[in-house]
């Protein structure tokens, strides 16, 4: 295993590989949702998954923090390594893993708690703060990173559900980064937002790239082009093409990618 990572490192002189998936298969009952996907996701990079509805991009994203475990009928096969460690190894605690691999969902889903408690939720359950002052600091830092601090600092005790849609989504991002994850997964984070809120979240994603490896599933090809450095195109459960974003959008190798990008399928 170490060897392979060494090889990877050698190949990519600039960037480290954060996540490495090999021969991943996912079944929902009898439905073969993901077919033999191999992908290497770089650290401190935004990677976009694009593809038509039902192509398996969200399913694959949920494999990366074992969220599929919460679905009874889902079975995952193959190897997914994060920093060279197999996350489906029986020794790995999925609960710990999810603290390391944060996730932001399609629809903003703040808990019915105050803004402060929403952000403090993860640090509290994982015991990341020694005292209240530290917790306050984590909350403030996360909200600042999520570009929500200025709007929320005077109403930390107000319910998170009272925020606007875009603010709620940024609250969810703050909540996810409060546990100090190494990877941030985003499942269509802007599909329920208006264009202004989308622009704010996209700007935020670009900033988050400094600290995390970000994987984003999106339906909008413009969004993928705007925010990501690498793009993967999924079609019918297969990873069709994976390359630098510029290359995918200007010079796709596969005819299916080209059709999708030019709007002929999907």
């Amino acid at each position, binding site marked *: 295993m170490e060897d392979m990572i060494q090889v990877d490192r050698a190949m990519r002189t600039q960037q480290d590989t954060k996540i490495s998936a090999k021969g991943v298969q996912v079944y929902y009952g009898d439905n073969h949702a993901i077919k033999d996907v191999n992908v290497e996701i770089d650290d401190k990079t935004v990677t976009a998954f694009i593809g038509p509805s039902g192509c398996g991009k969200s399913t694959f994203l949920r494999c990366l923090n074992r*969220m599929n475990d919460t679905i009874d009928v889902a079975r995952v096969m193959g190897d997914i390594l994060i920093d060279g460690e197999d996350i489906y190894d029986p020794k790995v605690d999925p609960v710990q893993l999810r603290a390391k691999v944060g996730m932001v969902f399609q629809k903003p889903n703040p808990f019915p708690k105050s803004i402060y408690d929403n952000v403090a939720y993860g640090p509290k359950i994982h015991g990341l703060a020694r005292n209240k002052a530290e917790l306050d600091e984590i909350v403030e830092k996360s909200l600042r990173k999520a570009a929500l601090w200025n709007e929320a600092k005077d109403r930390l005790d107000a319910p998170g559900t009272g925020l606007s849609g875009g603010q709620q989504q940024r609250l969810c991002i703050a909540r996810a980064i409060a546990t100090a994850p190494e990877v941030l997964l985003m499942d269509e984070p802007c599909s329920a937002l208006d264009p202004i809120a989308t622009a704010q979240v996209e700007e935020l994603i670009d900033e988050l790239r400094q600290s995390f490896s970000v994987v984003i599933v999106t339906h909008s090809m413009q969004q993928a082009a705007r925010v990501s450095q690498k793009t993967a195109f999924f079609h019918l459960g297969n990873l069709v093409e994976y390359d630098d974003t510029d290359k995918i959008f200007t010079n796709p190798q596969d005819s299916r990618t080209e059709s999708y990008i030019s709007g002929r399928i999907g």
Partner: protein
Amino acid sequence: MSNLLIIAIILALGVAGFIMGRGRALRSAGGDKRELHSLPIYYGANVALSALLPAAGLLAIWLIAQPFAINNAVSGLILDESIEETGTRDLVMADVRRVAEGLDRAVDTGAMDAEASFALNTDTDDVRDTLGSLGVALGSDVTPDTLAAAQRYRELSGTGNLFKTLAVIAAGLIGLGVTYLRTHKDFRARNTVENGVLLLLIGAACIAVLTTLGIVLSLIFNTIEFFRLYQASEFFLGTNWSPSFSGRGQTSALGILPLLWGTLYISFVALLVAVPLGLFAAIYLSEYASKGVRSVAKPLLEVLAGIPTIVYGLFALLTVGPLLVEAFGEGGLFGVSWMAGGTAVMTAGLVMGIMLIPFVSSLSDDIINAVPQAMRDGSYGLGATKSETVRQVILPAALPGIVGAVLLAASRAIGETMIVVLGAGAAARLSLNPFEAMTTVTAKIVSQLTGDSDFASPEALVAFALGITLFVITLGLNVFALYIVRKYREQYD
């Protein structure tokens, strides 16, 4: 003409109206139903409804109003002496109605012809004997004024019934005729039928509401009657409940406090059993159980809700009571002698708690399931375990609904009767010991109204005062439950 026959005639008018209306509409369109504004069935229904609804409404109003009108007209004929002799005007009026009915029956069976029945005279004929031979027993001899009132009563009801028959049938015919004439291919029958349907639905809703109102009013009137005979302050503040069955209220102590205490104590024990068990069962079923377990366990749990409460009562009396005595009684397992007999607050409370489990669990299960999956995903996505998610995200989100479910269960516990009658004993007492026998408001309502007590005595009327107190308490709880549920409902949308 009997009411049944009148109803049959109206129905026949309706059927005839349907066929006629449909035919007329089709004829006006030259037999081509595409020319019609509405489907032919609507024209028929329109005519049928306008024959049926006014006639039926008129009949209903008439049936309610006529007895009142006749009673008012007749009661003026009764002399004050007769009232003093019998007790109350109502009792004399009951006699009047019995005499009138008896005479009508005599005419019906041919024992007397109509003229002879009106010519009766208390001096020459023995009315009581004549009616007695026809199976109408009277408590005392018929006085002249009672007979006169009875004759007037018969006359008025006779004319009333005749007018009723004529008016109702006329209403049916007029409705039928007018609508029949208006039926034409361009007539918007569909819209009119829509209004008719609306009326029908409003009528159904009104009946439900009016019935509730009627129940409440009857409770209120009897309660007022009770408070005329018994001091309200003694009823609400009295700490002693010992009704005497012979006296007229003077020797009875009818304080509600021991009963209310018993009710609340038993309900409290029941909720102490039902809320944790029901809630945990609901959490297991909705969050942890696999599909297979859930599909078996949930119906099994809900079977508990289908068991008649009298069966729970038997269970309390025969199983739980003796078991508790074995544990807490003299020489029992714990070496304490807190419990003298099988019937106790604990017995009734435990069994009632078991009865309430499906109530709490099934409502809570629905509420927990209504918490959006996104909440769970959000929490799992942050690395929370299942129980952390349940404790910190799902329960807070579902709390208002769960509180509502608990309050509804509480109002059921307060209104429960059979388990208490069999499990809690019959002694009204204010005590803190849960192993002592106590009784509740509902159990005492049963015991005050069963047996032959004089219905005008405070000992019987107290049942209504108890009933309305209970009603106010459960109503308050229900309103409070609804308020809580509404107030917090939108929180996670």
